[in-house]
């Protein structure tokens, strides 16, 4: 258990009657594990993504990219993914290869087509904006259970569903957040909303997911994700489309050779 959570856990233990077998921390972790397990076993998928960046005055700017993901199989290994940028046109053909890990920093490489060069991304840039959007690099990365500690807060109605409200704390010291509060429905364990609190503990952003579709009779994916920055007034809408599972991706689609011809 995280040292920072220890006093809170002790307080809880003192304040609640002994009949409560599960601490809020344990329940939070259990919910996160359940949500994670419902996404497991997908194998591989490909999808298209469109980002619409909206300025404070309402001006919009688009980015289009495609994502290919292969599920990780090892103990330590997370997913492998390839992101290919289509617009804006000056970054067209740029591709990013990510090997994610459960307990340590991801390995990331960027292919720059004009130079025919593969560059290693020094991955401390977690809180920085992804392509100038309100999504940061850490928002776009794999949300491995091990990268956070958790605390269950309460049950709360969310639309027609009932949600668990769970707080989670990034373990990474380079994270841009102190905590995130997420609303996860009790039926399908989909994340509908997340409030992000910055390093100064003020509310920074809110993510709202909608238009969920189910694939392979199991996996729920949002069609739209909206990130609103409360401090700048800017927002980004992210639209997912063309979700395809079992596309035949394998390890050989995720190395430096395949990165250089990713199209």
């Amino acid at each position, binding site marked *: 258990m995280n040292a920072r959570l220890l006093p809170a856990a002790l307080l809880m233990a003192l304040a609640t009657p002994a009949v409560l077998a599960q601490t809020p921390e344990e329940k939070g972790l259990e919910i996160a594990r359940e949500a994670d397990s419902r996404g497991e076993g997908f194998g591989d998928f490909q999808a298209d993504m469109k980002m619409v*960046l909206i*300025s404070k005055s309402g001006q919009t*700017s*688009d980015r289009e990219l495609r994502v290919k993901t292969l599920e990780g199989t090892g103990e330590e290994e997370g997913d492998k993914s390839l992101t290919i940028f289509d*617009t*804006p*046109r*000056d*970054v*067209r053909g740029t591709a990013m290869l990510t*090997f994610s890990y459960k307990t340590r920093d991801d*390995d990331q490489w960027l292919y720059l087509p004009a*130079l*025919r*060069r593969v560059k*290693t991304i*020094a*991955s*401390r*840039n*977690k*809180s*920085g*904006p992804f392509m*100038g959007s309100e999504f940061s690099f850490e928002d776009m990365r794999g949300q491995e259970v091990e990268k956070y500690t958790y605390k269950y807060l309460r049950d709360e109605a969310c639309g027609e569903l009932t949600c668990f409200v769970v707080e989670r704390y990034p373990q990474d010291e*380079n994270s*841009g957040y102190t905590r995130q509060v997420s609303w996860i429905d009790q039926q399908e364990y989909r994340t509908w909303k997340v409030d992000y609190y910055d390093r100064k503990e003020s509310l920074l952003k809110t993510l709202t997911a909608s238009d969920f579709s189910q694939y392979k009779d199991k996996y729920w994916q949002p069609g739209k994700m909206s990130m609103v920055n409360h401090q700048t007034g800017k927002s980004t809408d992210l639209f997912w489309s063309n979700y395809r599972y079992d596309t035949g991706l394998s390890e*050989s689609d995720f*190395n*430096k*050779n395949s990165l250089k*011809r990713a*199209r």
Partner: protein
Amino acid sequence: MKNWLLTASLLTVPLISPAWEFRGEVALEGRYFTQDSPYPQADYSTNGSGYIKPEVFHEWNNRDDLFTFIPYVRVDEHDSERTHWDIRELSWIHVGNGWESRVGIRKVFWGVTEGRHLVDIINQTDQVDQVDGEEKLGQPMINLSTVRDWGIVDVFVLPGFRERTYAGEEGRPRTPLPVSDNAQYESSKENQRVDFAIRYQQYFDNGLELALSHFSGTSRDPLLVPDSLTLAELQALIASGQLPSGSDPEFTPLYNVIDQTGLELQYLNSGWLWKLEAISRSGQGERFNAVDGGFEFTQVGLFDTATDLGWIVEYIWEDREDSLASPLASDVLLGTRFTFNDVASTEILAGIIYDTQDEEKAISLESSRRFGNSLKASLEARFYTDTGKPQSASALYRDVLRNVNSNPGLGPISRSDFVQAELVYYF
């Protein structure tokens, strides 16, 4: 150009599937030179230029076959040498199980450092196109690549040699003497020699990346040999930047056959990216070694904004003891990059290369941003300083040759400081 067109014609591409993609870029460039040219043939202070680079792609066989065609044409207002065309790419890639073949004209980059690309050797530099040496000519090749758990091995057969491009007499910046079109080759096959290269690369999950390479063939860097140049002419050249009337000497590029072994190392640890490139080359005079090593570090979210500030520090060293080259090169690169992470992807890059031997500095400033979805604008400035004139005649002689042969970025383009604006449209 004949021999590489021949190689290209070996490609047979089935023209059946409709999955063709056509795109490209077109650009306009304007330069303002802040100093007067020492050369009467290049006596102007503004220059306009432009290029077009269409790209054709085609995929078939479930994306296991990829055809690429990228021609390139540049037109320059003053320099007839800079007005040139090239086939940057005309290639067919076939992907097998654990291997791929790449046949045709292509561009390949090797290396990790920013200061000098020591290891990078497959393609010839299109020097007349960009003074930074990043622009390359298409190289005919047959390249086989295998991917295994223990690394990626690339084998290259390189038929046909491309000569380095140089600015003409009307060009700015240009070499002190014009470069002759009649290159000299050590190989009796001249530019028809078939060269070979091999490279092994591996990535370890503790943040270490390694590559070892060997190249055997005609050197991409020629030695520029001044022909029929008397010491008096040379002294006149250095003193005034002009030759006495009536003399018409040129540099003749001499392409030796070399063997070059290269090492690339990179280590990423908590945001610090450590880099090293080293080469050992034989065949161009005495065997010599060169090293470029340093680090890159990025300060994320500067002053609580979205701006990142990247630092690049590298030390470049070379122990070349050739009479035609410098006794020792020892340069320091310091670079900073501001990345604003805004909608327009605004960036500012400032760099200085300091030659610790004779205290010359090359300073560059580059900034760019996007307008809308298809337009990118960049501003660039390049300044060079050199302090004092060498004293003795032999030092003079060595200086001009050293500058040309082992330090192409500095001396010879002194008095060609410039500011450049470029607009690129992507279609």
